């Protein structure tokens, strides 16, 4: 290529592009004019066209379909594995300190109070096995917004699909399922949940399981209290928070922050019976029966929505509790 005239050097880029079908119309025109009178460049032009044709032949001889299929098969299984491991999360500042929310493709897997700390290392997600945490955005933010609405009392339900993968055992999962079924504005006890899952002697184990509830607020372990009405343990030492969460739902507690009881005399009582009747706390000795056997209800509207009817002797319909 030595000793090429200057104008041939200048047009080389356009010439290659034009010959290989990759030039602007203006460039094509310039090249055509040039090769009309420049034989060496005309030769080059045809040579590049030949090359382009040979390259075209290359694209028509792709890799064997069976190796593509094998790679695809391997991909499907690696993808399935990744999907089952991948959990996306985000950490939000909130009035309750930092809150981490994590979800998998199956549903929300973790709501965690991180307090002062705001990094993944502070979360149990970073220590969970078989989980690949991935920081993520928008859809988790929507969950957080709903959670805030809930905490402000603007929403009574968090109708989220749940993923209980962080539960530690089948027993743990059963406790979480039973707890999730306790409606907004109702309260039962650890013993009540133990009876519900057919393990009436497992009261302490139920309490322990709820201590490790991966989905506080969503799986409403704050609605589970002692049989005497005491607000025992919540997420370590957050009894005050438990009290607030219950207050949002219309369930008042009395006493010191360390020794709180729900105010039974302000709540309707329901003990399972064939007529599905619910009572005033003054009906017989119902207010002395253990919570768990008795479910406490914040309002008549709740009782109605559960399909309960007013007791025909104490008549909560005629003598509703003062709100």
């Amino acid at each position, binding site marked *: 290529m030595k000793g090429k005239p200057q104008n041939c050097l200048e047009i080389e*880029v356009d010439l*290659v*592009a034009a010959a*290989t*079908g*990759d030039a602007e119309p203006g460039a094509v025109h310039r090249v055509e004019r040039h090769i009309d009178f420049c034989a060496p460049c005309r030769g*080059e032009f*045809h*040579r*590049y*066209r*030949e*090359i*382009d*044709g*040979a*390259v*075209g*032949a*290359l*694209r028509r*001889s*792709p*890799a064997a379909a069976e*190796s*593509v299929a*094998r*790679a*695809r098969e*391997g*991909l*499907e299984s*690696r*993808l399935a594995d*990744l*999907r089952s491991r*991948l959990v*996306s999360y985000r950490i939000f500042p909130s009035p309750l300190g930092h809150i981490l929310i994590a979800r998998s493709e199956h549903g929300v897997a973790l709501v965690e109070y991180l307090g002062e700390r705001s990094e993944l290392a502070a979360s149990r997600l970073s220590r969970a096995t078989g989980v690949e945490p*991935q920081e*993520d*955005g*928008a*859809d988790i933010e*929507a969950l957080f917004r709903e959670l805030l609405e809930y905490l402000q009392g603007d929403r009574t339900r968090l109708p989220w699909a749940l993923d209980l993968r962080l539960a530690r055992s089948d027993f743990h999962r059963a406790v979480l399922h039973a707890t999730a079924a306790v409606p907004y504005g109702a309260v039962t006890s650890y013993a009540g949940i133990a009876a519900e899952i057919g393990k009436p002697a497992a009261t302490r184990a139920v309490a322990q399981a709820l201590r490790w509830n991966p989905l506080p607020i969503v799986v409403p372990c704050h609605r589970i209290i002692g049989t005497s009405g005491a607000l025992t343990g919540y997420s370590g030492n957050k009894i005050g928070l438990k009290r607030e969460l219950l207050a949002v739902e219309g369930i008042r507690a009395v006493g010191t922050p360390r020794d709180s009881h729900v105010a039974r005399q302000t709540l309707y009582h329901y003990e399972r019976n064939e007529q599905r009747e619910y009572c005033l706390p003054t009906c017989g000795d119902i207010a002395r029966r253990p919570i768990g056997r008795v479910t406490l209800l914040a309002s008549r509207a709740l009782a109605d929505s559960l399909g309960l009817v007013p007791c025909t002797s104490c008549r909560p319909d005629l003598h509703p509790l003062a709100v």
Partner: protein
Amino acid sequence: MMGAQPFETIVGAHHAEIYRYIRRVTSRATEAEDLSQETFLRAYRAYRTLGPEANVRAWLFAIATNLTRNHFRSEKRRRVAYQAASIERREADPDGPESEARFGEAKVLLESTVGRLPLKQRQAFIMRKIHDLDYEAIGQSLDCSAESARAHVFQALRKIRLSLDGQALAPTTTEQPR
């Protein structure tokens, strides 16, 4: 919240092409298998954050291009390490360019020439000439401007032209791919 179509659709639509792209760049089936899978695993992790307007195909090519580049980089490091330990190893790849060149057939020669191009030129050339990506997309894959991408393809064609000097090519000049 998420790319417009389910990820399975993306895999179905693009896996074969991405596999072929990597296979051409690396010229080895095992690497193409692994790197194409790796491409889609990465894409899956990031897919939720991809805007609905995004050009998914160009995006996948960019991931594949980067993975391949990293792969060659660490491969090179490994080779250097081997040499330092004076464990001289011969490439025993039967599809390797050296053995192919002896056949002298134009297509084989062309393939081996492409295989010897510097990586960026090779990737640019294959994206443009085999997969018809536009220079904007190629530039994004290679972390350079569309103009630089065009220059890479030009340099690649020039090298191919030089290495095929005097070599008879099949009379395919009338059969333009575009």
